[in-house]
Every structure is written in structure tokens, then in C-alpha cells.
């Protein structure tokens, strides 16, 4: 009897370790099953998973003569991965805020710094932008945007050069990332000034 319970404990431990390993394999850190559940409920799903090898392979096919493609190639060189999930829903309430909170919490570590964190009063619209900083350099960006009918999760891992983002004229919005960082720095400075004056 004692032996059986020990075996069960060991089995449970092995299964637990396997589940943790599987969760770690998923770079978006979405809990197992949540991704499938969201995809099943969404009316439109876009899933992009590009690891380092795939990015290297894709960069070979980016034309160096085209301005946008050349800038994209420069941007993705050295990246560890790009993971994007975009879900569009026909009606509201297809995902829970607990799921969003769970995902957000997995990025609340010392190496990820929040740049933008916004909540609508009703709590159904949230925006999070986080940066992974290593020795003062950005080594990753995480964007989580939740609307009642739309959920966008973006995770880019690897060294990101902000000046390269601005060159992507055809991909509007990416250039804004550079501005975002500048804005944040300006706001931080203003805060520091105010803090110093008080």
C-alpha cells in the first residue's frame, strides 16, 4: 500500500514536470489548452510562430534591394523568435479576464519592465507593453492588447534595435515603438523632475 502511494506520487511528479516543460516550450506562456480554446471560440485567428531558425531562413528570402524588406531583414537578424496570436471574436465575453491576468503575470518578472499599462474603467479593454531589458538594452518586447472582441498577443525575443523599427515605413506602427520608448523616457524624466522638486 505504502509502495503504491509512493509510486503514485512519483508518477504525479513526472507528469507535473512534463506539463511544466510543455508550458516552457510554448514561448507565449499561454497555459496549456487556453490557446486551443481561444482559437476554437474565435471567428478569425492569426497565429505566427517563428523561431530563430525560421527567422534565419526567412531572412534569406528578404530582398535586399527593397527598402522595407532590407529593413525587415536587418530587424530580424539576431532575433530569437517572433510569436504572434491574434483572435477576433463575433461576440463579447469569449475569453475571461482571468486568462489575460494569468498571461500578464507570467511576464511580471524582474527582467521584464512595463512600458505601458492601461486599463479602461470597465476593465474590458487593457493594454500592456513590456520590455525585456538586459544590461540596459532591449532584448524583447511583449504586447498584450485585449478588447472585448479582439485579443492580440505579440512576443518578440532577442535584441531589438529601435532605430531599425523606424525604418519600416511600410509597416506603420512599428516606427511608433521607437516613439513609445522616447515618450516613456520623457515621462520618466518629467516624473524624476517633479519628484526631485517635491
Amino acid at each position: 500500500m505504502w509502495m503504491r502511494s509512493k509510486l503514485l506520487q512519483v508518477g504525479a511528479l513526472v507528469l507535473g514536470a512534463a506539463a511544466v516543460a510543455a508550458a516552457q516550450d510554448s514561448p507565449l506562456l499561454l497555459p496549456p489548452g487556453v490557446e486551443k480554446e481561444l482559437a476554437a471560440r474565435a471567428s478569425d485567428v492569426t497565429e505566427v510562430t517563428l523561431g530563430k531558425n525560421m527567422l534565419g531562413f526567412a531572412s534569406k528570402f528578404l530582398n535586399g534591394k527593397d527598402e522595407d524588406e532590407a529593413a525587415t531583414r536587418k530587424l530580424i537578424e539576431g532575433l530569437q523568435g517572433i510569436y504572434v496570436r491574434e483572435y477576433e471574436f463575433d461576440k463579447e465575453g469569449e475569453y475571461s479576464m482571468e486568462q489575460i491576468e494569468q498571461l500578464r503575470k507570467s511576464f511580471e518578472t524582474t527582467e521584464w519592465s512595463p512600458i505601458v499599462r492601461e486599463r479602461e474603467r470597465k476593465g474590458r479593454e487593457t493594454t500592456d507593453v513590456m520590455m525585456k531589458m538586459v544590461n540596459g538594452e532591449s532584448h524583447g518586447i511583449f504586447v498584450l492588447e485585449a478588447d472585448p472582441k479582439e485579443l492580440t498577443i505579440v512576443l518578440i525575443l532577442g535584441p531589438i534595435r529601435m532605430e531599425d523599427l523606424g525604418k519600416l515605413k511600410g509597416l506603420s506602427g512599428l516606427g511608433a515603438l521607437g516613439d513609445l520608448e522616447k515618450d516613456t523616457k520623457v515621462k520618466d524624466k518629467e516624473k524624476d523632475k517633479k519628484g526631485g522638486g517635491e
Partner: protein
Amino acid sequence: MVHEEMDDFEQELKQALQRRPAPPSLKRRVMERRVQRRSPSQMVWMRLAATLLIVALLGGGLRWGMEQREERRKGEEAKRQVMVALRITGRALNQVNTRLAAHDRGGE
């Protein structure tokens, strides 16, 4: 004495260089030897080997071409995915900017 020796030598040379017609059986014998050397079964094998070589070369070339095309297709697909991912990222960040701007306007 020397003169006689020279005459003999000239005589021998003359005989050796004399044009003689080939024996009538020579052509037949040469042709027979040739046929013997390459029997019909040998010819078939040689032709088969040559055909197989050509087929292998053509097949290899075709496969290489197909692999190149497949590689290109996969590369174009990967490139398309990179562009889609960056476009979605750009759109999300644009929305963030818009929200922040609206928030700032509301706060003023």
C-alpha cells in the same frame, strides 16, 4: 662485293615495299571479329546502361529543381509570416499609441 650486297638489299626493299592487294577474306574476317567483340546482348546492355544513366541524370535534375522550388515556396511563406507578424505588431502598437494619445487628451 659491296655493290652486290647493295643490289640484294635493294631487291629485298623493293619486294617489301611492293603493293600487294589485301586477301579477299580480310574484310570478312575483320567484320566477323568486330561482331564477335560486340555481341547483340552486349549491345543491349550498353544501350540499357546509357538509357539508365540519362534517366538518372534527368531524374536527378528534375528532383533538384523540385527541391529548389519547394525551398523557395517555404522561404516565401516564412517571409510572408514575418511580414504578417510585424504588421500585427505594428497595428497593435498603433492602437497603443492612439489610446495613449486619447488618454493624454482626456487628462488635459
